[in-house]
């Protein structure tokens, strides 16, 4: 009896520790964003006198004021947003469609170089584009393709990570009988892929969509090198501008600018968080 009681006490103590730590970590996750949003509605003078406070004397007025300040300078979130949206959307569509197609080629057909091809895909999966950037930039420069958003999009056709993921998914969930029955009905191979296989891959597509979109949306390194014209800047490049000298003391507008870049991601995350976390668990590996 006594033993059981002490065990019980111990586990209550542990539970308290667990909840305290988890709540602290939850606050740690949220706090920077709360500070960011509140300070976006405060004036620079208010932030300087106390940077961590919910108080704002004239929130709406400060907000419009902060907006005016950064609008007069180089930070241009609207252009960045549109460019990022174009790049991320097209990247996602291309990567998803062609990765499904390639994974289906690996799954459904017997061909001579199949295993070698799969080996290649696994082999190049981990190599980040950043280490080959010098050659990529020079090649692009010679054909006058820098400052073209297309150059950030088209390479997505070869996304080895996603092909690997999709192939694993097909192996676990698609039976060749479905494909064969399509063949019986006289459908061509391409038709079978588009009409039967693609719809069956929806769950895998959904998770990969989110990761590809977010990954592309957040990319800074390659766009920063390829894009030198202001009207081609993506959102992360615009964000980097906020760190430059001209905003040094305009705290309110820096917070507002950051808020604008975070809001779309937070909306997506709040709507899809369950699928995102499940997707990570499935192996939606980013790197």
């Amino acid at each position, binding site marked *: 009896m006594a033993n059981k009681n002490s065990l019980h006490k111990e*586990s209550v103590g542990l*539970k308290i520790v*667990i*909840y305290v730590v*988890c709540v602290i*970590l*939850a606050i*740690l*996750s*949220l706090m*920077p964003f709360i500070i*960011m949003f509140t*300070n976006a509605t405060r004036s620079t003078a208010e932030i300087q006198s106390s*940077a*961590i406070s919910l108080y704002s004397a004239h929130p709406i007025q400060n907000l419009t004021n902060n907006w005016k300040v950064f609008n007069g300078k180089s930070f241009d979130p609207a252009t960045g947003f549109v460019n990022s949206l174009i790049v991320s959307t097209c990247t996602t569509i291309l990567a998803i469609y062609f990765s499904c*197609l*390639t994974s*289906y*080629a*690996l799954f459904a*057909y*017997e*061909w*001579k170089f199949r295993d070698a091809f799969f080996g290649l895909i*696994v*082999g*190049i999966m*981990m190599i980040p584009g950043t*280490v*080959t*950037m*010098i*050659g990529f*930039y*020079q*090649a692009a420069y010679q054909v006058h393709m820098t400052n073209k958003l297309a150059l950030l999009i088209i*390479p*997505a*056709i*070869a996304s080895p990570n996603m092909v690997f993921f999709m192939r694993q998914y097909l192996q676990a969930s698609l039976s060749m009988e479905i494909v064969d029955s399509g063949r019986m009905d006289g459908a061509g*191979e391409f038709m079978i892929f588009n009409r039967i296989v693609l719809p069956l891959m929806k769950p895998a597509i959904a998770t990969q969509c989110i990761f590809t979109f*977010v990954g592309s949306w*957040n990319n*800074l*390194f390659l766009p920063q090198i390829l894009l030198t014209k202001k009207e081609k800047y993506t959102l*992360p*490049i615009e964000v*980097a501008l906020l*760190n430059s000298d001209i905003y040094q003391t305009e705290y309110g507008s820096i*917070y507002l600018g*950051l808020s604008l*870049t*975070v809001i779309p991601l*937070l909306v997506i995350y709040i709507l899809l968080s369950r699928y995102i*976390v499940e997707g*990570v*668990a*499935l*192996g939606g590996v980013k*790197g």
Partner: protein
Amino acid sequence: MGNKKLVDYGKFGYIFSIPFILAFLVFSLYPILYTFYIGFTDFAGMAATIKDSKVLWSEPFKNFISVFKSNLFRKSFGNTVVIWIMNFIPQMGLALLLTAWFTDRRSKVKGQGIFKILFYMPNIITAATVAVLFTQIFGYPSGPINTTLLKLGLTEKGINFVLTPWRIKGVVAFIQFWQWYGYTMVILISGVIGIDPAIFEAADLDGANRVQTFFLVTLPCIRTVMLYTLVTSLIGGLNMFDIPSLYARDQGDSGGYTVNMYIKDVAFTGKQRYNLAAAASIIMFIIIVALSLVLFYIMRDKDEAKLKKLKKQALKAAKAKKAY
């Protein structure tokens, strides 16, 4: 029906792979080879063109030697590895602790779902935004952290977080940790969920307590997942760019200067020495390929071991049948 048609289908394997292969050749393989080529030339300078530059036949590894001798490269490599270690150890530690708590079979932690969602959240936010945000939050003398420290009386003048190399490394490592521990936790939890429940039941029957179960059963079972996380995190860590390039870039004796920043600066600022940048890229490329091979070996090992087991079992079964 039958054979003839099967042979026919095979060609679709090739057809459907063509877009991937073309894109791979043009946008991955060609840049890799081109980077290698540039690494062996004297291609440098604003006005230089690749046509005018020559391959360094007499001393082919000149660029590589210069890179290895460069203090800035060594420093950036050291910084990159140190920052990675400073972020990875606490990240893995916390992720393991949370995994142990969240997967404990005897006492369920309530609200797990919401905690996981909150812990993972920083991971999806643009790293550039996060870096600029933390520049403000760690601002001196009147950023939120310093304001709080002053109010609590923990410091008199506030702490200048960009003053010394170690402070910068600490903050960059903290930001990386903050962004990635939730991700690592989710991966580890999925590894634990994948363990055969019978193993835990056996541990229960043997009277193993919570701590014993975790260290002697759970940890060995998720060894592969942990190694996978280690290698992928190391590869990501070697490519660290966004956060250190936006947080305290030229301050504190460049304590947060990383290899990718070095490569970019060497190629696109000052004398524009593409050849040196390419050589540095190739060095990183080789390190990363080596790491990938390690990873490949780890992942393959597991499947092969399984196959071997199955084969053994099949052999045993066959023998048993024969005996009958």
